[in-house]
C-alpha cells in the first residue's frame, strides 16, 4: 500500500489505551499454552491422532496471529517457528520424536515467559504495580536458542519416517476407527462379525453378506448401492467422530456390544459391523445427520468469563445474605404468624439455593493442577535420570478455586520428593526385584465430606531409624519408645528435618515438608504419610470442600459460644460418674464403651467461668483430630448451624485451637474450634 498512510494507520496499539485488547490477549495466550502443553503431554502418553496435533497447531497459530497484531515480535517469531514445526507434523511430513516433543515443550515455556513479561508490562502501565517492585520484574528471555533448535529439526527432515522410538501418528483415523483400510489384515483374535455372531447379535446370513463386501470400503458399498452419495461419504470421512460411536449412541448397537467387540478384536474394526445387518443404510444416513447436529450442539455450551474478584465479592455478599437470613429467622421465631413463617422458610430455601449456586461457581476441577504435576514429574524424572510412570486419577474432582490455587505448591513438593528421593535408580530397583520403571500415582477422591488427594510411590520408602535419629539429634523428640511407626514417619513434617543424603537442586534444601504441612493446614486440611521400607510411601492430603462455609454444632461454655465442625464430631453424650476417672500421666479420661479417651475441659483451657464443671452434669462431645479421638467437655449443645467462616485477623492468629469466627443466629459471634489445635493446646497446657 503505497498510498499516503494517515497517522495511526499501522495499528500500533498503546497498552493504556487498548488495555482491554491486551488483557484479552494475555488470557487467551494463557489458555492456548495450557491447552497445548496438555495436548503435547498426551502425545507422549500414547499414540496420538492427527486432531491433537492439529489442535496444538491452531493454538500456536492463533498466538502468532494475535502477537503479530500487537507488535510482539519475539512471541510472534517463536510461535511462527513452532507453528511451522507443527504444520509439518500434522501433515505427516515429519514424525513426532522425543526431540520434537521436548523442543515444543520448552518453546511453550519460553512463550509463557514472554507472556508473563507482557503481563508485568501491562500491570505497570495500568498502575497495578510499580516498576520498582522487584518481585514483579520482567525476566529477559532469548528466543534464539529455541528458534535454532526448531530450525535444525526442520532442516533435518530427511530422516526415515519410521524408527523404533517414535510415537506413531495415526494420521487420518482414530484408534477406534470404524473405517476399514484397504490393507486391513484378517485379525487373528477374531473378527467383530464373529464376535457379534457368537453373541447372537447378528445372524450367519448377515455376516456372510458383510464378508462378501468385506474387501470394499463401506463408503464405496453405500455409493454402489445408491444409498448415499460420494459427497455424503466425504462429509462423513471428514468427521472426527467414529461412525460406530454414533451408532452406539443412537442405540442401534449397544455400547457394551461395541466395547466388548473392540476389546476382543483389537484396534481395527471393519465395515462389517456397520453393514452386518445390525444396522441399516437408513441408520447410517441418520447417523451422519446427527453428526452435524451434535457438532452444533457442542458449540451451544457457552461460557462467560468472569473476573474472579467479582466472584469473590458475590461470594462474600451471599455469606452476608445467609447471615442476615439466619438473624431474621431467629428474631421471627417469637412471632407466631403462620404466613410470616411460611414466607420465611421460602426465603431460607431460596437463600440456600443461591448459596449452593455461588458455591458451585467457585468449584473447579483439579484437571489443570494435575496436568501441571504430570509435566513436573516428567521434568524431574528426566533430570534425575529415572524412569517414572505417572498415573493420574480423579482429576475431575472439584475443589474450591482458592484451595486449588494453594494446593499446587504442596503437591509440587511432595511429588518432587517422591521422584527424587523415593524412587530408586533403575539399577537399584532391578537389584531389589522391582520393575525398572518406578511408579508414582496422584489421585483425588471424595471421602466423608472431604476431598482426599493421595500421592503414592513404589520407591524405597521412608527410613524410620534415620528420621528418628535426626529428630533426636535436633531435639525434636525426647522419648522415642512410646512413638508408633506412623508418628515417626510423620516427623518428616517437623521443621528442619530433611532425610535426603545430599541436597539436590530438585528437592530443595530441607525447607520442604514443614512448609507443606503449614500450607495444607492453612487450607484447614491435614496431611500425613504412611510408608513401608522398600515398598513405598503414601502421602494423604485431606481438604475441606470449601474454605468459606462449614457445618457445625454450636456449644456453650460459660457465656461463650463455640462451633465444632460437624465433620470432626463422633458423638456427644452425658457421661455417668463412674465413666470418668483420672489416670496418671494422662489427666482426666472418659471411658466410652471400653475406650479410654482423654477429656479436655474447654472452660479450663480457655479460662472461662462456668457453673458446670462436673462432667456428669455437662455434655462430652467426642471429636476426632489428627492425633485421634478425645472428649471435649462443654456446658450444653445449642444446635446445628451452617456458618460462614470469618477470619479473626492477625491478632488472634496465635490462639491455638481456634480457626476462625462466625456470626450466629442470634447475631453474636461464635468461635470455631479446630479440634487438632485444641488437643495440642491441651497437651501444652498440662
Amino acid at each position: 500500500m503505497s498510498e499516503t498512510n494517515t497517522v495511526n494507520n499501522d495499528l500500533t496499539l498503546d497498552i493504556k489505551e487498548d488495555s482491554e485488547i491486551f488483557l484479552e490477549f494475555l488470557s487467551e495466550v494463557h489458555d492456548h499454552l495450557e491447552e497445548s502443553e496438555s495436548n503435547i503431554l498426551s502425545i507422549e502418553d500414547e499414540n496420538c491422532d492427527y486432531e491433537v496435533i492439529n489442535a496444538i497447531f491452531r493454538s500456536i497459530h492463533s498466538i502468532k496471529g494475535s502477537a503479530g497484531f500487537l507488535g510482539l515480535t519475539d512471541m510472534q517469531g517463536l510461535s511462527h517457528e513452532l507453528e511451522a514445526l507443527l504444520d509439518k507434523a500434522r501433515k505427516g511430513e515429519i514424525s513426532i520424536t522425543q526431540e520434537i516433543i521436548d523442543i515444543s515443550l520448552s518453546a511453550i515455556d519460553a512463550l509463557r515467559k514472554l507472556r508473563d513479561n507482557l503481563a508485568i508490562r501491562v500491570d505497570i502501565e495500568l498502575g497495578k504495580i510499580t516498576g520498582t517492585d522487584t518481585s514483579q520484574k520482567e525476566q529477559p528471555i532469548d528466543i534464539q536458542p529455541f528458534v535454532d533448535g526448531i530450525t535444525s529439526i526442520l532442516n533435518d527432515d530427511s530422516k526415515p519416517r519410521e524408527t523404533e522410538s517414535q510415537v506413531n501418528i495415526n494420521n487420518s483415523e482414530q484408534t477406534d476407527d470404524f473405517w476399514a483400510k484397504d490393507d486391513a489384515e484378517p485379525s487373528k483374535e477374531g473378527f467383530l462379525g464373529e464376535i457379534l455372531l457368537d453373541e447372537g447379535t447378528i445372524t450367519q446370513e448377515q455376516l456372510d453378506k458383510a464378508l462378501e463386501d468385506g474387501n470394499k470400503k463401506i463408503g464405496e458399498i453405500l455409493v454402489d448401492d445408491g444409498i448415499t452419495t460420494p459427497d455424503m461419504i466425504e462429509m462423513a470421512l471428514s468427521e472426527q467422530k467414529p461412525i460406530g460411536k454414533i451408532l452406539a449412541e443412537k442405540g442401534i448397537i449397544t455400547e457394551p456390544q461395541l466395547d466388548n467387540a473392540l476389546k476382543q478384536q483389537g484396534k481395527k474394526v471393519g465395515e462389517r459391523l456397520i453393514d452386518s445387518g445390525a444396522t441399516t443404510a437408513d441408520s447410517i444416513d441418520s447417523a451422519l445427520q446427527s453428526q452435524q447436529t451434535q457438532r452444533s450442539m457442542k458449540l451451544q455450551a457457552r461460557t462467560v468469563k468472569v473476573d474472579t474478584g467479582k466472584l469473590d465479592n458475590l461470594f462474600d455478599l451471599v455469606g452476608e445474605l445467609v447471615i442476615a437470613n439466619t438473624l431474621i429467622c431467629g428474631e421471627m421465631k417469637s412471632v407466631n404468624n403462620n404466613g410470616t413463617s411460611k414466607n420465611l422458610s421460602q426465603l431460607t430455601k431460596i437463600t440456600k439455593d443461591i448459596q449452593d449456586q455461588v458455591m458451585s461457581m467457585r468449584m473447579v476441577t483439579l484437571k489443570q493442577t494435575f496436568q501441571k504435576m504430570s509435566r513436573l514429574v516428567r521434568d524431574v524424572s528426566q533430570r534425575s535420570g529415572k524412569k517414572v510412570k505417572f498415573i493420574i486419577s480423579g482429576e475431575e474432582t472439584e475443589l474450591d478455586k482458592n484451595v486449588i490455587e494453594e494446593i499446587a505448591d504442596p503437591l509440587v513438593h511432595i511429588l518432587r520428593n517422591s521422584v527424587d528421593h523415593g524412587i530408586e535408580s533403575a539399577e537399584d530397583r532391578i537389584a531389589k526385584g522391582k520393575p525398572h520403571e518406578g511408579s508414582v500415582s496422584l489421585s483425588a477422591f471424595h471421602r466423608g465430606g472431604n476431598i482426599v488427594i493421595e500421592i503414592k510411590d513404589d520407591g524405597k520408602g521412608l527410613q524410620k531409624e534415620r528420621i528418628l535419629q535426626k529428630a533426636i539429634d535436633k531435639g525434636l523428640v525426647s522419648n522415642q519408645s512410646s512413638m508408633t511407626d506412623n508418628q515417626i514417619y510423620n516427623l518428616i513434617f517437623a521443621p528442619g528435618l530433611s532425610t535426603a543424603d545430599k541436597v539436590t537442586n530438585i528437592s530443595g534444601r530441607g525447607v520442604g515438608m514443614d512448609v507443606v504441612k503449614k500450607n495444607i493446614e492453612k487450607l484447614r486440611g491435614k496431611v500425613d504419610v504412611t510408608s513401608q521400607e522398600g515398598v513405598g510411601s503414601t502421602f494423604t492430603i485431606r481438604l475441606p470442600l470449601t474454605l468459606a462455609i462449614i457445618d457445625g454444632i454450636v456449644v456453650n461454655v460459660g457465656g461463650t459460644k463455640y462451633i465444632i465442625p460437624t465433620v470432626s464430631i463422633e458423638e456427644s453424650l452425658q457421661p455417668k460418674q463412674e465413666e470418668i476417672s483420672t489416670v496418671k500421666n494422662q489427666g482426666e479420661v472418659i471411658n466410652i464403651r471400653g475406650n479410654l479417651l482423654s477429656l479436655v475441659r474447654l472452660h479450663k483451657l480457655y479460662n472461662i467461668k462456668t457453673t458446670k464443671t462436673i462432667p456428669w452434669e455437662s455434655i462430652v462431645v467426642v471429636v476426632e483430630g489428627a492425633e485421634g479421638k478425645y472428649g471435649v467437655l462443654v456446658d450444653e449443645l445449642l444446635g446445628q448451624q451452617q456458618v460462614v467462616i470469618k477470619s479473626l485477623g492477625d491478632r488472634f492468629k496465635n490462639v491455638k485451637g481456634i480457626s476462625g469466627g462466625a456470626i450466629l443466629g442470634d447475631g453474636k459471634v461464635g468461635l470455631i474450634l479446630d479440634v487438632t489445635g485444641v488437643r495440642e493446646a491441651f497437651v501444652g497446657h498440662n
Partner: protein
Amino acid sequence: MKKVLIVDDASVVRLLIKKVLKQGDFDIVGEAVNGVDALEKYKEFKPDIVTMDITMPEVDGIQATKDIIAFDADAKIVMLSGIDQKEMLWQAIKAGAASYIVKPFEKDRILSTLNEVINSNNSGS
C-alpha cells in the same frame, strides 16, 4: 451503516477489527468463533459483509465460506489471512470469497477493501 459479521477464533483479532471498523461506516452485528458458528450467525444476522479468518477449530474459514455461499450465493466474504497462507487463500477465492486482506493489517486497507466489496455488488442481484 453496513452490517458486518466478524469471524475469527482469536478474540484479540476480533477486538482489533472492531476497533478499526468503528472508525468507518460499519455496524458490527455479530461475531463468530468458528465455521459452524459463522454459518449460524450469518443466517441469524444477514450481514452485508463477513470478515473471515482461515484457521479455526471445528470448521475452518474455507469450509465456512463454502457453507455460507451455499446458503446465500450473494454473500460477501473477505478473507483475512497470514502471509504464509496464500495457498489457502486461493481455495477461499474458489469457494466464493470476494476478496482478501493479508496480514499485517492496516486500517485503511481494511476499510477500503470492505467498502469496495460492498459497493461492487450493488448492481449484482
